[in-house]
């Protein structure tokens, strides 16, 4: 299980951590109910609160479908998803409502291009009315400064690089104190140098806020580096093929990549991922 005990971070206690997701026997069929595309096939797994769970699988296997179901963008065909023991979606209510307790960071970025960065960041609280504008802007300035984003508050997203945009998007999400952060291959479009910076930035944020993170990627190295737990999915229709608890201690930094334990973990999982990748390739997966 996860090695960090939480006592290194004053102010956070275990009981306050929330964001526990339980996916139970989820099924998703696209198209007509008999004869459509089976994307998710009786999938069951847990996303523990206060931890980073990474789902790895070949492209098009259905992992984004699961994320979308949690976020409330898609419905399930069968099965249920629970958030902190409450039903998000399940029999009788197959589609969850999107909300600020489960915020998504999108693959191609979803900052609103016509709002300045700080307007983007304050969007959530202002829309919900949970803060006055003055308060929201002040908090936004602090959070952006903490994340190393001082100075670009009044620029537009189009004027900054994509890596910085991602970071702004994460800050925008965190302004709402979400229970869980859903990241859908957020760093996929970045070069690997920027990616390494992003990873450390994400971990930094995680250590400070202990928000539950549900992260989707196809990059195994990224998965093992970031996650407390890595779930390897089969190719479509997806279900967990292998679950790995990463016992490399937190806090981690990039030097972890060269440790023996990291290489061992890579060896263990690489074969599993590769098998599924071959199956996906032979099935001729199309990017969705």
């Amino acid at each position, binding site marked *: 299980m996860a090695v960090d005990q939480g006592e290194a971070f004053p102010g956070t206690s275990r009981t306050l951590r929330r964001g526990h997701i339980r996916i139970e026997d989820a099924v998703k069929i696209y198209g007509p109910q008999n004869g459509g595309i089976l994307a998710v096939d009786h999938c069951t797994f847990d996303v523990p609160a206060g931890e980073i769970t990474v789902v790895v699988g070949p492209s098009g296997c259905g992992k984004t479908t699961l994320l979308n179901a949690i*976020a*409330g*963008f898609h419905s399930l065909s069968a099965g249920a998803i629970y958030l902190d023991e409450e039903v998000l979606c399940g029999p009788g209510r197959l589609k969850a409502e*999107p*909300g*600020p307790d*489960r*915020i*998504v960071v*999108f*693959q*191609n970025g*979803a900052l*609103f*291009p*016509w*709002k300045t960065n700080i307007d983007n960041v304050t*969007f*959530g609280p202002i*829309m*919900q009315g949970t803060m006055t504008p003055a308060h929201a802007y002040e908090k936004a300035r602090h959070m952006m400064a903490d994340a190393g984003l001082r*100075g*670009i508050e009044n*620029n*537009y*997203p*189009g*004027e*900054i*690089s*994509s890596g*910085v945009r991602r970071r702004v998007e994460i800050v*925008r*999400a965190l302004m*709402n104190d979400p229970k869980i952060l859903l990241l859908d291959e957020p760093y996929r479009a970045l070069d690997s140098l920027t990616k390494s910076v992003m990873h450390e930035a994400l971990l930094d944020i995680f250590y400070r806020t202990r928000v539950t993170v549900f992260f989707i990627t196809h990059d195994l190295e990224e998965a093992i580096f970031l996650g407390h737990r890595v779930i390897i999915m089969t190719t479509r229709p997806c279900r967990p093929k292998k679950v790995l608890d990463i016992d490399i201690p937190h806090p981690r930094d990039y030097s972890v990549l060269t440790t023996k334990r990291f290489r061992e973990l890579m060896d263990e999982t690489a074969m599993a991922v590769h098998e599924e990748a071959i199956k996906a390739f032979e099935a001729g997966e199309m990017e969705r």
Partner: protein
Amino acid sequence: MTETEVTGLRTFQPAESGIVATDTPNSWALSMHRTALWLKSPRPYLMLIGFGLFLGFWYLSVEVLKLPRFAQMPGPTEVIDEWLNQDPTYGLSIFIPEYYMHIWVSTRRIAIAFFLATVTGVPLGLFLGWSQRFKQYVFPVFELLRPIPPLAWVPLAIVMFRGSETPVIFLTFLASFYATALNTMLGVQSIDVSLIRAASCLGAKRWQIFRHIVVPGALPFIFTGLQISVGVAWFSLVAGEMVSGQYGLGYVINTSYTMVRYPTIIIGMVTLGIVGYVTSAAIRAVGDYMMQWRTRELSLGRQ
């Protein structure tokens, strides 16, 4: 030699700057810079060659070679002479107040029709794009009437409305309205669905999404639509004026023809071209101003 030079195509390279300096050039400085670059390129000179060829051809065929086909056409010297004449033979030049009155009358009609079309077309387009239900009800009726060309409405418009101004404005309004509404609808449909999803994740309610995401997101298409719309408005206005108006540039062209004042026809056409271009450019400028985020992004990328 890069591909762009070989084929002559210009391609857009997306902006990829680092964290931006605190000192972004403002749009005025940028325009100055771009004008300077333009002057140094071969483009202004090619442009002059193009115009030279065009005018030269016209001049040669009418006034020098006197080709039979062109016998009745006025030549460029004749037109310019007439246009800039303090005492024009056929009654219209830049020195005659009547000239400006016609321009004003046409422009006023365009302004009214365009304003009405925008005020009705943009909201309609926004709703058509945003609400599936609304679209299912309204769009078929909308599409039913659309194929009927503007000028086909002229007789009906004359029958329906009294006076001579209203039918013409109605015609112009109709064509403009369709262009605006369609492009606005397309604009809403073109918004990246992730943006809408992100907004709903962040707790925005439907009307908030509409106001903060849909409307700004559709703006680029809306403005393209408005430019098309003003072009279409001129098209219909001229048609309407030629058939049933009094005063106005279309009327000028038509009567110049019936009264055998041929150089004035050309003057009318040229004036139409200029005024049409100016109205289009004005809308583009307003659009650029309202969509600051885009101009800045594009200007950074296209050095």
